[in-house]
């Protein structure tokens, strides 16, 4: 090994100087580290939490690895010149440091936890000059239905939002548990049948974002993804108009056939949605077998009918 050491160092130096930082980015696809390249305040906050925690944790990592390697080398059996104290096994001072150090680090992180958990509570509305847009998301096997109750339109595997405008997303499932996430916007939340969860997101830049169900849900899981488009207000209005003009209403029959399992579903736009469909889907899981009966009138349900179950608030 010793003979190889010098050529190796030279080679490494050459390799490093030869590669630009761009080479690294391209080779290792570093521009895809979406957790760091955020497009909204929630995701940015989360990135900062992670980076802060990582930095604090370096105060654990570096000493542990350092001491381990140092002692492992220094006190090897072959090195007989070192002090050897076979019966030394206690030191109050040292123990105080060993307990105190981690306690201090965890104290800092505990404060961060409380503050960040309240700030990032998915149920907490995002402050903005613009009024939030309501979206109702229903997870199905294996696609997402997004209802825009304020606009009376709906879409499958595609959602749109005006930039700099908060979204208030209510979620439920018409099947198994699903996890809704748009990585560049932040925060995942579960969608569960018979229950409603809520998530607030906002995009501060325009673009098309990857969105997906993150909770394994069966054969079609891998392709259960959608595009979230962050548009200018004008483009968003145009998107709504495009949906309204699609001439494809989501009536209960259409809903019943949509909810059947299907894979690799291309985006669909719906021109209209029955009032109260989201609540009705929840309700049918609470009191019945989850099926929508032929004579259903979703808008007849009151909020009391759709009582909340379980932990979701």
């Amino acid at each position, binding site marked *: 090994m010793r003979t190889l050491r010098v050529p190796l160092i030279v080679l490494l130096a050459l390799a490093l100087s030869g590669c630009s930082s761009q080479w690294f980015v391209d080779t290792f696809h570093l521009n895809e580290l979406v957790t760091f390249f955020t497009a909204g305040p929630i995701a940015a906050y989360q990135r900062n939490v992670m980076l802060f925690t990582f930095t604090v944790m370096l105060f654990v990592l570096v000493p542990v690895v350092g001491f381990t390697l140092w002692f492992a080398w220094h006190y090897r059996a072959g090195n007989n010149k070192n002090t050897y104290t076979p019966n030394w096994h206690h030191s109050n001072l040292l123990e105080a440091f060993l307990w105190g150090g981690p306690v201090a680090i965890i104290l800092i992180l505990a404060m961060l936890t409380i503050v960040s958990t309240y700030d990032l509570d998915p149920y907490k509305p995002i402050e903005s000059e613009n009024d939030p847009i309501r979206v109702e998301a229903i997870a199905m096997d294996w696609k997402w239905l997004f209802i825009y109750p304020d606009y009376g339109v709906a879409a499958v595997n595609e959602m749109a939002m005006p930039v700099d405008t908060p979204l208030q997303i209510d979620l439920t499932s018409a099947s198994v548990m699903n996890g809704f996430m748009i990585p560049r916007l932040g925060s995942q939340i579960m969608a569960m049948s018979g229950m409603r969860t809520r998530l607030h997101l906002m995009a501060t830049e325009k673009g098309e974002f990857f969105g997906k169900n993150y909770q394994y849900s069966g054969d079609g899981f891998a392709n259960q993804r959608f595009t979230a488009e962050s548009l200018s207000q004008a483009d968003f209005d145009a998107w709504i108009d495009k949906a309204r003009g699609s001439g494809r209403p989501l009536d209960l029959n259409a809903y019943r056939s949509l909810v059947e399992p299907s894979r690799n579903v291309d985006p669909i736009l719906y021109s209209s949605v029955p009032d109260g469909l989201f609540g009705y889907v929840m309700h049918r899981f*609470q*009191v*019945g077998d989850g099926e929508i009966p032929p004579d259903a009138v979703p808008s007849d349900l009151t909020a009391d009918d759709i009582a909340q*179950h379980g932990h979701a608030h």
Partner: protein
Amino acid sequence: MASSPSHDLNRVRAAARADTEVNFGFWAYLMSDVVLFSMLFLAYVNLSQRYAGGPTPGEIFSLHGVFLETMALLASSLTFGLAMVSLHQGKKNHIIGWLLATFVLGAFFLWHEVSEFVHIIHEGASFDRSGFLSAYFGLVGTHGAHVFFGMIWLLTMVAQVALRGLTPAIGSRLARLSLFWHFLDLVWICVFSTVYLPGLIQGGSA
């Protein structure tokens, strides 16, 4: 090998030590059973309001039946206690008598419980009707299953006492069965106060 007196003494000490060891192990098992039941109580408490449009506790529980069951089980604890008293007095036939009495009371309890289950199911309130009913049958049924296996154990012990007499091993087993039986009584008290009492208070009497 010739056995010296000190050697015999060692054997006796070892046997006594082994006895506390087995009892300790049985307590540890009972702890695990406590956790099992607490999970079922957790399930019941969580699901007890989820009628899914089906029957409510007030519509299916009958205070009369539950009262009889509770009395039978409490009485069976008493008779088992008397069996243990007889054990300490070394009265073999009394033990068998009290154990059989315990068995009969247990059988009465179980018979009553099963006939109540059958009755409820016939009224269309089966365990597949709602989350509440599943939890009810699950919790009460698990307790019933414990009673059933306790009764098999009882019969086995009756046979062992009858055939083998009062050996230390059998006395020690009876002590553990007694623990088990009283434990089931305790669980039943919890079932009564978690399931039947709130159910009847909330839902009015049937």
